[in-house]
Structures are given as structure tokens and as C-alpha cells.
């Protein structure tokens, strides 16, 4: 098992390295002149040339790549052109905010969607399945901003239970103090995924219940509960759990609309701003962070998959 995990991590490193080359290459190709972004349009060409020289933009490409990579790995992600401040502390704070929101969303998604999916699979083509399938289709087809607005209308305007504004006003996140602000964005994010994961679980459950080994288990004379819990669930939950894990990256880095809607200071909106303002170091950092998140959650998914499925573990 340890070797399996080790192998996965080596693959992870290689993938990251390849992607870092791609990201660096892309920021080279982009028609952005850093000195122009920093000094503004009114600057003299001489000043811009001097700045470019000072920042090392005239060095050969491989050298710049290696320098960039070394600095990136050692935690020096440079200064943001737009904000003129170091990127690293800013991103780390946003990363923490986003991770907490994503974790909360997953806590809502996992039990609900796995439970509903299993029930729908067990009662295939009967009313519990029809109701669950229709419900999950509905949540999948509703865009996140519609869900978010509906929740704001219901819980903030009508019931006045929860705040519609989730901004932290520059403060570090503190669960004891801010938990009420997290609920609406987390529920909105959960809404988008719950239907999808429910459907995956349902299909997986149906497939397992039709399999010959479930027939074996039933015809062994095992009590129905044992058949479901011991034989069916272990197999049926493998696929949805792996999928939930891979969605984590998206929940952390991809909730741009939800963050904007609730004014929540997460990674998604930070990255979106960077892209709009040609903030090269921030764009590179955001790409690297997003890629790391995706690759990392994929590895976690693989490891989980291996743990749940001995066929993978021992091959």
C-alpha cells in the first residue's frame, strides 16, 4: 500500500513539473508587458526598459524558468502588479477561507447525496427513486447564482435568519465568529453538486445490486441488511467517493460566481481579478495553485480508491 501511495506521489510530482512548464510558457506568450502594467501608460520607454532589465526579463528563457520555479517552490511568489504587495500571504489567507467553505460544502454534500443515491438505487423505478431522480435533475439544472439568490431572498430577506453578505472585511477567518456567514455560500455550492453525486451513486448502486456477487450474497441466506451494508455499499460507494474527492479542487478554486454573489473573500474571485488586470505573477500563482489542487485531489482520490478497492491496491 505504501508503495502504491509513493508511486502516486511520484506521478504527481512529474505532472506538476510538466504543468509548471506549460504555465510559464503561457505567461511568456501572453501579450502583456510587465513594465507597462507596473509603470502605467504614461511611463517613458527608457524607464520601462530599465525596469525590465532590473526584473530580469531580458535573461534567457530557461534561466528565467528555473529562477521562477525555484522561487515559487521556496514560497517567494513575487509581488502582485495590481496591488503592489507580496502575493504569498494574500493567497494563503484566501486559500484558507476557500478551503473552509469547500470543506463545509462537502460536509453537506457527501451524506445527503450518498444516502439519497443509495435509496434511489435500491428502489429503482419506484416512487422514492422517481422523486429523488427528479429532485436531483432539478438541482443540476438550476444555475448557482439562481440558487444563491433564492436562498438570499428566503433566508435573509424573508426569514432574516442568515446574513446575505459574507464578506470578512479583511479579517482572518474565525469559525466561531463567522460561521453564520458561511452557511448560505456553502449551501449554494452544495446544491450544485448534490444532484450530480446523487445520480452517480444511484447508477453505481443499481449496477452493484444487479451483480452476480449480490445474488451470491442473497442466495447464501444472509439477512438483507448484511447484504446491503457489507456487500453492496462497499462496492457501490467506491465511484462516488472518488468523484467527490476530485470535486474538492473545484470547490476550492472555482466558486467565482458564488464568492462574488455573497462577497466572500475566496480564491476564485482573487484569481478572476488577476486575470482581468493582467497581473502576471498572480495569474501564474493562481494557475499553479489551481493545478496543484486538482492534481493533489486526484491523488487523494486514487489513494482512497485503492484503499476501498483491493483489486487496485494489489495489482
Amino acid at each position: 500500500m505504501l508503495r502504491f501511495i509513493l508511486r502516486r506521489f511520484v506521478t504527481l510530482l512529474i505532472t506538476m513539473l510538466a504543468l509548471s512548464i506549460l504555465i510559464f510558457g503561457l505567461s511568456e506568450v501572453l501579450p502583456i508587458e510587465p513594465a507597462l502594467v507596473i509603470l502605467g501608460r504614461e511611463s517613458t520607454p527608457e524607464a520601462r526598459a530599465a525596469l525590465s532589465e532590473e526584473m530580469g526579463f531580458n535573461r534567457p528563457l530557461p534561466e528565467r524558468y528555473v529562477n521562477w520555479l525555484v522561487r515559487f517552490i521556496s514560497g517567494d511568489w513575487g509581488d502582485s502588479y495590481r496591488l503592489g504587495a507580496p502575493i504569498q500571504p494574500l493567497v494563503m489567507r484566501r486559500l484558507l477561507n476557500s478551503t473552509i467553505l469547500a470543506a463545509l460544502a462537502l460536509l453537506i454534500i457527501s451524506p445527503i447525496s450518498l444516502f439519497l443515491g443509495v435509496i434511489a438505487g435500491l428502489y429503482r423505478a419506484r416512487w422514492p427513486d422517481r422523486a429523488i431522480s427528479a429532485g436531483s435533475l432539478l438541482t443540476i439544472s438550476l444555475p448557482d447564482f439562481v440558487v444563491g439568490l433564492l436562498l438570499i431572498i428566503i433566508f435573509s430577506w424573508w426569514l432574516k435568519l442568515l446574513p446575505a453578505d459574507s464578506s470578512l472585511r479583511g479579517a482572518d477567518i474565525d469559525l466561531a465568529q463567522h460561521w453564520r456567514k458561511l452557511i448560505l455560500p456553502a449551501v449554494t455550492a452544495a446544491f450544485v453538486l448534490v444532484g450530480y453525486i446523487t445520480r452517480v451513486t444511484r447508477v453505481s448502486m443499481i449496477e452493484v445490486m444487479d451483480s452476480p456477487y449480490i445474488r451470491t450474497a442473497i442466495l447464501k441466506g444472509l439477512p438483507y441488511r448484511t447484504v446491503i451494508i457489507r456487500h453492496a455499499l462497499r462496492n457501490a460507494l467506491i465511484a462516488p467517493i472518488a468523484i467527490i474527492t476530485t470535486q474538492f479542487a473545484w470547490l476550492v478554486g472555482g466558486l467565482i460566481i458564488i464568492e462574488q454573489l455573497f462577497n466572500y473573500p475566496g480564491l476564485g474571485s482573487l484569481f478572476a481579478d488577476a486575470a482581468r488586470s493582467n497581473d502576471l505573477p498572480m495569474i501564474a500563482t493562481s494557475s499553479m495553485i489551481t493545478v496543484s489542487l486538482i492534481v493533489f485531489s486526484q491523488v487523494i482520490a486514487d489513494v482512497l480508491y485503492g484503499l476501498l478497492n483491493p483489486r487496485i491496491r494489489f495489482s
Partner: protein
Amino acid sequence: MTPVLDIQNLNVNYHSSRGIARAVRDLSLTIEGGETYGLVGESGCGKSTVALSIMRYLPRQAQDSGGIRFQGRDLMQAPAEELRHLRGNRIAIVYQDPQSSLNPVLTIERQLSEVIAAHEEHSASESRRRILDMLERVRMPDPQYILGRYPHQLSGGMQQRIVIAMALLLRPDLVIMDEPTTGLDVTIEAGVLDILDDLRREFKMAILYISHNLGVIARICDRVGIMYAGELIEQAPVNDIFAHPSHPYTLGLLRCVPRQGLRYTNEALYSIPGRVPPLTALPQGCAFAPRCVLAESACTAAHPRLESTAQDHSARCIHWETVVEQPERVTFTRPLSSQTDQNSEKNLLNVRGLKVYFMQALDVLGIRKRPNIKVVDGVDFDLPAQRTLGVVGESGCGKSTIAKVLAGLTPVTSGKIEFSGSDFAKPIESRSSDSLQQLQMVFQNPDSSLNPRHTISQTLSRPLRRFKIVPQDQENETIIGLLRSVNLDESYLDRYPSQLSGGEKQRVAIARAFAGNPELVVCDEPISSLDVSVQAAVLNLLHELQHQRKVALVFIAHDLNVVRYISDEVAVIYLGRICEIGPTDRIFSPPSHPYTEALMSAIPVADPNAQINPIRLSGNVPSPANPPTGCHFHTRCPRKIGAICETHEPPAQEAGDNHKIFCHIPLDELRVLQTDVMVKM
């Protein structure tokens, strides 16, 4: 005495959008304690539905009526809790495909111990003791070790022994075996059958043994029931069924399997024309009448009753008295073209030192180099024009890889393949159009080798156009000719593969292979996915086409009798190497390679009185990534003579007439050893 199982007038209907399929019709049978009852029939005739009905595990769209009594208890009325107590405890079932019937994520111990836990109360140590005891009885090597394994870590034969152990754990009174050895290699099958045969004597349980293989039935059953289209059409003690078949279908089943020793030079194979009728639209009267040579108007007028023909013997046929008078020998429907031109001194195909290694993925760190998998490891053979070379061996021996290499679908690692003068050791992309035309293939599974979106006429026109066989205006005519040559007519032109039966699809696949006027057709297990009644017809046809069109065949199969029937020469392969190669008659008489001998003795013979000398191979085929040293076969060889087998590759011994045996044992010794024990065939 109440029988253990008593089924009366069982009817099972499946409701589907296409109507009501009558899967089982009015079936009655009883099985006494200690008796093994064989239920025989082709796929789709209702055997497995009977099994599921007994277990009360029919799918929701199925409805059954009638009576099923187990030791006097009515199973149809039994409440769920009572059924649960019976299942796995008093009634157990073993299915085909053990791999999928074991749970992949639970250890073997867990899956066995829960059977005991569900029905009896025992301490963990007592439960473990009983499991180990049962594993010993199914001759599982190293049971302690096996307990901690997962199913995928065991071979097919071992998995099936686990499933059998699971079924017998609580000493049930009735065991249903649904094709338990289908899908296993003959050598493994023989071992599993030995175990079953011993255990049924020891445990005195009633067994319902479902199979399509009459050889297996002859070996293990006391009484036999033959099913056709959902009905029992004949029932008798096993000896009577084989000695006096009283239904034309039974007779057909018995005769269409190539008997030992049968060769194409002597006679054509007996075959049953047509196909099993769809269960949603059964014909009037006797369901077999449309395929029966004895059919007359009386057969279609009224549904025949199951008549008693002798003591304990009954048949559902109004002609039961004349059935056995059917002529035994059959000739080919079309006269074969004059004998093969014997001037074929020139070989069409020369293969020398053929090696195919598969590289294993490197360790990610690249530290340990993994060995190559030697799938084919130095194979030499020749094939004269218009002749047939049969290739046999257990699964994983490299047979199919040889086919793929000839077709250019798998790259050659080293070695020479010369085909009518040109180099064929290159991949298919770099072969010339002529080369492509000269060599065609027929695959095992016609479902996946025919394009489902092409009509039959599109499928057959493709090679005609690609190789410019006929001018455009004669194309249609040629296609109809091709269809006729495989006993289909022009009504098939616009049909799609999904509208054809398995046998018909394989005929189309054969017609396609012959369409381009090839010189060699490579057939990879061409009949093993087909029903027995259809196999013979397809084999006859393949042979007729070969002779009319003067084509050479490489015929790959695991069934020794089939290979013997159709081949002029045979190569026996083990772990990527040839053990023995030569003219067919020579291969099948002493002296033979010990592996060939074991393969022959493993075939179940469709004769309950057959005296066979059991030679059983121990263990499984070793991994080709790490083959044994010296003679590859020494780890399983029952005739191993000593250290030389482990250290030295066996020499090629010439047994005359181009018959080569790769073995350290001197030929004279082999001949003496084998003449003593082998029944002269």
C-alpha cells in the same frame, strides 16, 4: 420417501415489451437424495430460469406458477424469512463465472465465514476450523494462506473451488450447479469435476447439474433431462440417454459434437439445421419440428406429450421409436472439390523463431527492471497451401497472440514470418494491399467483430471493393453467392447484425473473410462462442469453403476434438513454446508429449461408460513473465524424469513423418508408457 426436490408443472413467463416469453413450460422433475440430475440444453432454453425459480430469485418481470417442493415444503408459498433460512443452508447454488460471483472487496475468509454465521452459531475458531476443513476437501492448496486473499488474487479454477466450498459448507441437502465448469480450461475443468464427483458420493446430497456439455453430464450425472425451448423433451437415466436417445434433438446434440477420432477426411459433422425459436413466438405443435428431419404434419398439428418409452425413460416425440434409426454417417452437402493438390511441396507460410514479448511498464522510479512477458517464445512452423494447421493449448499459452501476429495486429519482437514469398513480420499498416487480401481473419466473437451499423450487404461489399474483386455491376450477385455459400439467402442482405443469431453472424463473418479470395484464413476460436448445435454446422461450412476456394487455414481452438477433426497438422503450445507439432494422426497416437497426453485425458467424453485414464495436471499455467527454467512444462508434468527437465530445454525429437516432440523422455519410452494406459482411439 419424499424426494428432495419435486417440481410439478412449473411455468415461468417473462414479460417484456416484445410480448410474453415462455421461458419454462410445464416442467416436472424430481430428484432424490444422493442423486445427481443433469439438466441439458442450449443457451436460452430455460435451464437457468429453472434454477432461479427453485432459489426463488426470479427477476421482477418474471412470473411463475406450478409447484416446487423441497423436502415436502412448498417453496413457492414460503415466507421470506423461511427462504432465507433455506438458502445457503439447505439449498445452495454454484454458478458459472466464479470471478463475478465472489465479492471483489471482501476476503475469502469473510465470504466463507458469513455463510456459517448467517445460519448457525459457532465460535470464531470452530467456524474457521470448518472452513479450513472444507477447503481441504476441495483440494485447495495452502488453505490458511488463501483465507486472507481477495478473489482477484486467485486463478479461475481456485475461485470456482471457493464457490463450491461455500455452497457445501453447511452440508446442504440440495445443490444446484449452473454450468460450474464452463469457462474453465479443460485441464482445470477435469480437476473440478473430480472434486465434485468425490464430494457428491461423500455428502449424499441431491444435485441439479445444469450444463450444455454432454461430456460433463456423462461423467457426473445419474439421470438426465434434456430441455428445448423451455420444455423437458426427454428424460432418462444417463446410460439410456446415450444408448437410446428417443428424441431427434437429443440425438442431434449427441452427434453434433465431434467424437474422438473423427476427421474431416472420413465424414462431415452431424448438424441440426436452423435455430432455437424465439420464446415469445413458439411454433404450433412440437417446438423442435421446424428443425427436425423427421417432422411431418402430425408434428405441427398437436403438441406432443411426454410419453414413456421405456422404464424411467420418457420422450416428447411421436416418432420416438424410429429416432435411433437415423443414419449415423453424414456426408458434406456439396461435393468437395478434388483432393487438395498434393504438389503443395511449397509452403505458403514459414514461421521461424517467432518471439513476441510484451514489455511491462517500468517502475516509476526506474530502479527495478521488470522482466518481459514472453507470450510467444521461439515458435517455428510451416503451412503448405490449402492445408489446415490446428493450434491448441490452455488459455494464456499464446495461441491468440500467434493469430494476431500473423494478421499484423501485434508487433513481432524477433523472428521471421514469410508468407507466399513476402515478409509478414511487419505490422498491418506497412503491408501492401495484396498482402492484406491474401490473409483474412475470423474472430471468436461475431458480436464484436461485425460493425453493428452496417447491413450484411455493406459488410460483405467492403472487401470486394477494397480489393477490387469484381466490377461494380457484379457486386450484388457476388454477395448473394457468398451468402449462399454460407447457407444464408438474399433475405439477409439488408439486415443488421443485431437481427441475426450467433451462428448466422459467424457465417457472415466467415463469408467476409472469404470474400477477398484470400490464400490463408486465420480462425481464432471461431466456434467456441456458439451453441453446440450450431458449432457443427459452422465447422462443416468452414471446411467446405476452404476446399472449394483452395484456402489454407490456421485454426486456433482449445477444443482438442474440434482441432483434430478439421486439421491436417496440429501444433500443441504451452507457455509460448511448441511442445509437439506434426500430422494430426501422429499427434493423437503414442508417442505424444506428456502435455498433449494430459490435454487429451482431460476432455470429458460423451459416453457414461468411457474408461478414461485420468492424468491430472497440478496447479495453473505459470506466468509467462517468469516461466520455469528448462522445459516450461516441468512444474506440472506428470512424467517428469528429473533434474534435466529443470535445467535443459528439451530437444526436438523426430518421431517420423515430420512429427516433432520437445521432450527429454526418449520416444520409445514415451510410446511404451502411453500405449499401456491410453485407450486406443
